Structure formats: structure tokens, C-alpha cells
């Protein structure tokens, strides 16, 4: 698998990373190297292994349906670039 320039541009856009046009070529080569490294896994026959999302030998932890958090609007918005009356404030996004 190999990424062309358009794909690299789209991936960068989806990740909200600004990449200058003259960097796309080089970035694509780097990404291709990473993909090539991971593709080595294809050499292993996994046809008899069920897909798994974790190798941890444990079960999903469940919580009881209890309110244990909240009432901290100032803390939640403390790191926001802008806030007002405990709302996050962002540039206008209207459909």
C-alpha cells in the first residue's frame, strides 16, 4: 500500500494538521515507510485467530449508575482558549 499526495493532503485535513504543499511529498514517503513497517505483520498467518482489540488479560470494568462527577464548570472550561458564562466559546459554526 502506498499513499499518493492527494491522500496525504486529505489525511492531514481530517486530522486538522496544516501541511504546506511542498511538504506533502516528503510526508507521504514517511507515512509509506510506517505503513510498510506495519505491513510486515501480514506475513503472519492469523486465519485461525479471532480479531481482538486488546491483549490485556482482563475484562471490561463496569461502573454503577451513580452521579459521581460534575458541578465543576469553571474547571472544565479553565483551559479553553475562550469561555463566557461557563460556555466554551468558539468561532461561529453554523450549518
Amino acid at each position, binding site marked *: 500500500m502506498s499513499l499518493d499526495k492527494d491522500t496525504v493532503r486529505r489525511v492531514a485535513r481530517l486530522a486538522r494538521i496544516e501541511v504546506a504543499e511542498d511538504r506533502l511529498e516528503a510526508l507521504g514517503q514517511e507515512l509509506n515507510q510506517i505503513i510498510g513497517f506495519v505491513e510486515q505483520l501480514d506475513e503472519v498467518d492469523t486465519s485461525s485467530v479471532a480479531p481482538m482489540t486488546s491483549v490485556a488479560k482482563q475484562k471490561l470494568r463496569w461502573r454503577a449508575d451513580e452521579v459521581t*462527577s460534575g458541578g465543576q*464548570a469553571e474547571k472544565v472550561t479553565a483551559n479553553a482558549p475562550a469561555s463566557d458564562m461557563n460556555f466554551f466559546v468558539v468561532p461561529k459554526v453554523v450549518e
Partner: protein
Amino acid sequence: MRDIPTNPDNLIAGETGDWEIVMGLEIHAQVSSNAKLFSGASTEFGADPNSQVSFVDAGLPGMLPTINERCVEQAVRTGMGLNAEINLYSVFDRKNYFYPDLPQGYQISQFKQPIVGRGTVTIELSDGSTKEIGVERLHLEQDAGKSLHDQHPSQTYVDLNRCGVALMEIVSDPDMRSAEEASAYVEKVQRIVRYVGSCDGVMAEGSLRADVNVSVRRPGGELGTRCEIKNVNSMRFIRQAIEHEARRQIEILEDGGKIDQETRLYDPNKGVTRSMRSKEEAHDYRYFPDPDLLPLEMEQEWVDAIRASLPELPDAKKARFMADFGLSEYDARTLVSDRDSADYYEAVASGRDPKLSANWVTTDLFGYLNRTGINIAESPIKAAQLGQLIDRIIDKTISGRIAKEVFEVMCETHQDPDAIIAEKGLKQVTDEGAITAVVDQVIAENPDKVADVQGGKEKLLGWFTGQVMKLSGGKANPQAVNKILREKILGD
């Protein structure tokens, strides 16, 4: 896709021939729980901005999601209500998109392995018929926050209180062919989630919302390209949005154009749908299993215990009302529309005539509740009081006509029927002596009419009955009046 015979009544006439609408729905139902799907923040509606946000919901680094047991149980209950397969093993995935009301940058959802698989919902249509609608799946996912665009001229205000609240997304098969079927489907799903208690189903507060996938085709022909209409939040808007969208698509196709697959928003003020092009790029969701969450595994015994705790579901209740109480399909359907109505009816009908009870509940009580806008759970006329009123008809203390009068007073004063009957002296006169006196009076005052009856005009007896009832203030027992009249005039 299931093959559904075309119903000619559902066809829409275009300039170049008939068209058929094909629809599938995605319903988002907010899970009733105290806390959110993966955090301990409250789900309560209408709180101060960002006052119900944990650091998990805010997407702060280093925070890990932990699943809420109650939300899992609610999804299972709902799946059972939808007659669906329950998957003991399911997986949470990340659905990636970039939007200010989604601070994580992804929604935790279920993609390939949902908690609930295929099911069926039976919808009821106004002509009395029913239809099976396939359910493809139900999965658990997080809700997003809320953006307010009207607080500031150039900025959007974001409140994350709803962010992370558990939603059940219920995806139907494309089995619906008319706006009526689509709204009947939403109503039925709403009834089911309310019966099992997994969602309050209030569309006005956004607890239940529907996205409608609409396409049109020639009857029974190739499927057309579909458009998704987002977040239609009332039954009326669902019907309007579908009718408008189908017309729009038909016009384009008849003009030789083609439909673009896109997301559209219904504008209830203008009655039109419009394109939401800005969302298009966001559709590259790049799903992958969430590495923060292990697969969701449930024990069969736990699931069995949930099944054992389910209430009787609306379809089963309706069938029982028809079989055990001999009710019509229409009455049974009306009474099971919500659990409170069904419970009220059963309390009234217990030990009494089931059909008479159904008439009083669906006609008189529902009429009163509709007039006053009171919910049946808060009805000031209790089931025991309505039952007492019916008892007094059955034991002939009052006639059916007087019962209506007593009911009117009950609506005003909320008193027991017995108290009203005693206070207003409405007890039916069954004492033959008292009735005979009135009958004698009417006969004495109308010798010509007596002669007419004796001459063969038996129909005139009804007039005599009316006069006697009038003179007795409606309290004379009509059967006793008839009997005495016949004796006196005809010598029966």
C-alpha cells in the same frame, strides 16, 4: 432487502407516472440513566451550562471511559422490546469527526459488532392493518454537546452537558413506503422504549429523534439514490419532511436530473428540506476499535434475569385485552398506547364488565383528560371512582344517562360517585308504587293518546315512557316504567 409488495395506496402520482417512496429510519433514543454512558456526570435535562461535565466528557488527556452498567441493561431491555437478538459480545469503536460539540474528536459508538442485532417491530396503521418493519440493529453510543449560535454575533457557545449521555441508535430496514408508515414506526418504537422504561421518548426535549433516509423509485423498481433528513423532532414534522422530500426528488427525476446522496435538514418554518453540505467531508469517519475499551461481554444469566424483569409489552397486552376482555382491536390499541392507560383500564375493568369499562375509559375519561390536558397518571378521577360509577349502573342504582350526569360532576368536584348520587338525590326509583303514581298521572292527563296506543299505535308507548322519566327527573328505572305502562294501558 426484503421484498415488500407495492401497496397502490402509497403511490405518488407524478407527471410521468407513479412513484413509490422507500424509507429506512435511524432513531436516536436517549437512555434513561442517572449518569452518562462512560462517566459519572449527571444526565439531568436543563442544568446550567457545563455543570454536568466530567473530565472524561470534556475529552481531557489521561481520562479513561468506564461503562455504565445501567446503560447496558437499558440497551438489552430495548432490544428485547424490539424482538431482537441480544449479542453477548459487542465492541466499541471510535467514529472520528471534528466538531466543537465533540471535544474528544471522536464519538464512542459501535460499528461492526453492536450490542443488539436483528429484530422486528409491528406497526399499526389507521386502516386497522399492521405491517412488520425489520430492525437491522441497535447500538450504544455517546451523544454530542450542544452548540448555541444565537448568543453572540460571531461566536458559537458550546455546552457539553449532553456530551457523553448514552444514546441507543435503532436502525430500521428500508421497509417503509409512506409517511404514515414512518410515523407509525416512530410511535411504536416510542411506545416500546416507554414500556420497558429505557427512554422517556419525549421528542420535544430531543430524547427521541429520527433521521429519515428517503429515496423514490418506480413501483417495485430499482432503488433510487437516498437523502438523509436529519433530526426531525416531532411526528408531524416527520410526515411533512418525508412528503416534501419525496416531492422534491420526484421533481428532479422527472426533469431528467439526478439525486445527489446527501444529508438534508428539515426546516419546519418553511416546510422544506435543505442541503447540509458542510457535513459532507465529516463523513469520512475512519472507524476503529476504541483502544480505551475492552469488548463488552455479558453473562447469559444476567441477560435472562433482565428478560424475566420485563413488563408485558404492548403487542402482548393488546392481544390479551382482545382475547380476555373481548375488546375490539381499536379499543385495545387505544388502551395499550401507554402503560398508565392500560393499568388504569385494568383497574377499572377488574371484576366488572370489560366492554362497558372500556367505553367509559376511552370515551368519557379520555375525553375529559384531553379537554383538560391532564395526563392519565395524574387523573383526579381515580380508577376506583370510575369503577364505583360503573358498579352503580350495573346494580341499577342509576341509569346510564344519569351516570353521564354524575360523571360530569365528578369532573368538576372529583367526588366519589356515591357521594354525588346521595347529595343530588339521583338514586333511581325502582319502587313500583312511586312509579305507578306517576304513570297514573300521565295516563289521566292524556286519554286521547291512551286510546291511540290501545288502537294499535304501540310506538306511542315510547312517548309515555319519556313523559314519566321527565316527571321523575330521570330517576325512574326505565324498564320498570315500561312494564307498568304496558300493564296499565295494554293490560299485558
